[in-house]
């Protein structure tokens, strides 16, 4: 105990048992420090300051993480780790990914005969028609749609998506009829909302699939990883701006079915994991010490998109990577990170920005 004799405010305030005594004392620790104070009356002032400092900092910076949330998060990390037990390639850039699926029944062909994507009664929501872009996929293969916030939508055949050329600063809202996979760029301040006929799905930055064809009896949302909130559209619009909505929050491998008849959301464990991928087609790609320009060209070809880059700047950039289940954004992220570049999506094209490689 005499070792404590020379303690300064800073030393005391960073001493483990002293901190424990101040914040969460046990009888034993309390006895120890009371005794110490009696033996070192000249340090009482220093101890008082140290105590105040510890308390002030603790008060000022504490958070509200509950034990319940904590153990939930640990369980979640353990569970996802279990899922990904196969070591991933070295340059993996993992993003929380959520897959969301709104399934329909038989009526996708209904769509093919009705080519508008704005159902009656929706008109009030769309105020800036002139700014909206509609993409419809009538081909047999998926098409890739690049959104202004660097999010990617992969549109299935017979499906349509409507989105603003530039998202507003407060929210990112798109309308979907049919089926699409979204890989949403993370932005916690600007929620990404997917409107279908009956539901609103809100995410902050994940990836998910939606399948919601007109005339179906049900819609379904299934999550692979990450977090997704699903609301019946009516509830969402009625309570918008008010207190917290009672939507369904989906964690990985959960799904929710919206029954259009009784207008209810029912939560369950996801059955089909085969749909939890960006593309129905396998897009295996291997780049073995190749020029990054070749990788970008191959990527552009595989996804049917334009990737613009300065070929002079990138001449010295080489890349080794393999892709199998990764999304377009994951591939772009991995390649760009490897060569220290960045990218943006503008007017439906990917623009690579780089300072070159040595």
């Amino acid at each position: 105990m005499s070792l404590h004799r020379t303690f300064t405010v800073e030393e005391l305030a960073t001493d483990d048992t002293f901190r424990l005594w101040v914040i969460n004392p046990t009888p034993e620790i309390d006895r120890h420090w009371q005794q110490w104070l009696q033996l070192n009356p000249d340090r009482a002032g220093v101890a008082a300051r140290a105590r105040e400092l510890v308390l002030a900092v603790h008060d000022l910076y504490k958070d509200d993480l509950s034990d319940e949330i904590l153990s939930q998060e640990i369980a979640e990390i353990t569970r996802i780790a279990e899922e990904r037990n196969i070591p991933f390639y070295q340059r993996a850039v993992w993003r929380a990914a959520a897959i969301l699926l709104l399934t329909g029944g038989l009526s996708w062909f209904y769509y093919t005969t009705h080519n508008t994507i704005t159902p009656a009664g929706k008109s009030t929501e769309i105020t800036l028609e002139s700014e909206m872009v509609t993409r419809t996929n009538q081909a047999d293969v998926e098409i890739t749609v690049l959104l202004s916030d660097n999010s990617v939508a992969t549109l299935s055949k017979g499906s349509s998506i409507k989105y603003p050329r530039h998202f507003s600063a407060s929210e990112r809202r798109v309308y979907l009829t049919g089926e699409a996979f979204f890989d949403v760029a993370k932005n916690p301040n600007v929620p990404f909302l997917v409107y279908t006929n009956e539901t609103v799905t809100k995410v902050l930055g994940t990836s998910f699939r939606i399948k919601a064809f007109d005339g179906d009896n049900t819609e379904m949302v299934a999550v692979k990883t990450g977090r997704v909130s699903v609301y019946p559209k009516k509830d969402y619009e009625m309570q918008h701006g008010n207190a917290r909505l009672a939507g369904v929050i989906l964690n990985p491998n959960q799904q929710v079915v919206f029954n259009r008849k009784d207008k209810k959301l029912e939560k369950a464990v996801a059955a089909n994991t085969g749909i939890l991928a960006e593309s129905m087609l396998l897009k295996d790609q291997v780049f073995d010490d190749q020029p990054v320009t070749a990788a970008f060209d191959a990527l552009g070809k595989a996804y049917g998109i334009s990737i613009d880059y300065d070929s002079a700047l990138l001449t010295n950039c080489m890349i080794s990577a393999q892709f199998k289940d990764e999304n377009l954004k994951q591939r772009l992220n991995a390649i760009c990170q490897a060569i220290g570049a960045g990218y943006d999506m503008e007017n439906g094209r990917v623009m690579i920005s780089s300072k070159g490689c040595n």
Partner: protein
Amino acid sequence: MNQEENISNGSELNIRLWQRFKAGDSEALGQLAQTHYRALYNYATKFSSDPDFIRDTIQELYLELWERRIFLSETAFVKSYLLKALRHKLIKESIRLKRFHEPQVATFDADLSDPSIETHIIEAEHIRFQNGHLKRIISLLSKRQQEIIYLRFYQNLDNEDIASVMGLGRQSVSNLLYRTLKEIKEIWAPAEFFWVLLVFLS
């Protein structure tokens, strides 16, 4: 060979736990993640006010370690390394979102600027006020100074760890910390007399 107790202070990892982690035991990852989860969560709240974003980012951090576990050394799970990686991640994400924020700290609590008159012990009353006063002093410091005070006295890191987390030189950290503590001292009138009274009365 039981080093179980070492896991809690983060300076050394339990050997068996580490081996299980390396071998791909996800429960071991869970245990490792548990150790500093609170510290990471708290630090992240100074950069973002969105709990979902924070939880996702920490989850991502641990899963990245999981995927690179073959290449990792034990130091990856030392508190200051995790804090550094998390800080980097949070700032990188902010840059990507073009919304760079310096660490944000809690604003001064209104209830402490307005101490209750019903407090039964006048000394305790005084301490509460002083404590509020100190809080106000700290919250008026620059963001950088606040972060250093936070890392030193909330996360209880030493100067070297603070330098590593904030990406500063060790000397800059000790200069900045010295200067900050001096600034605090100059305007902080501590309630030591009353506090001592309280201690001896209790």
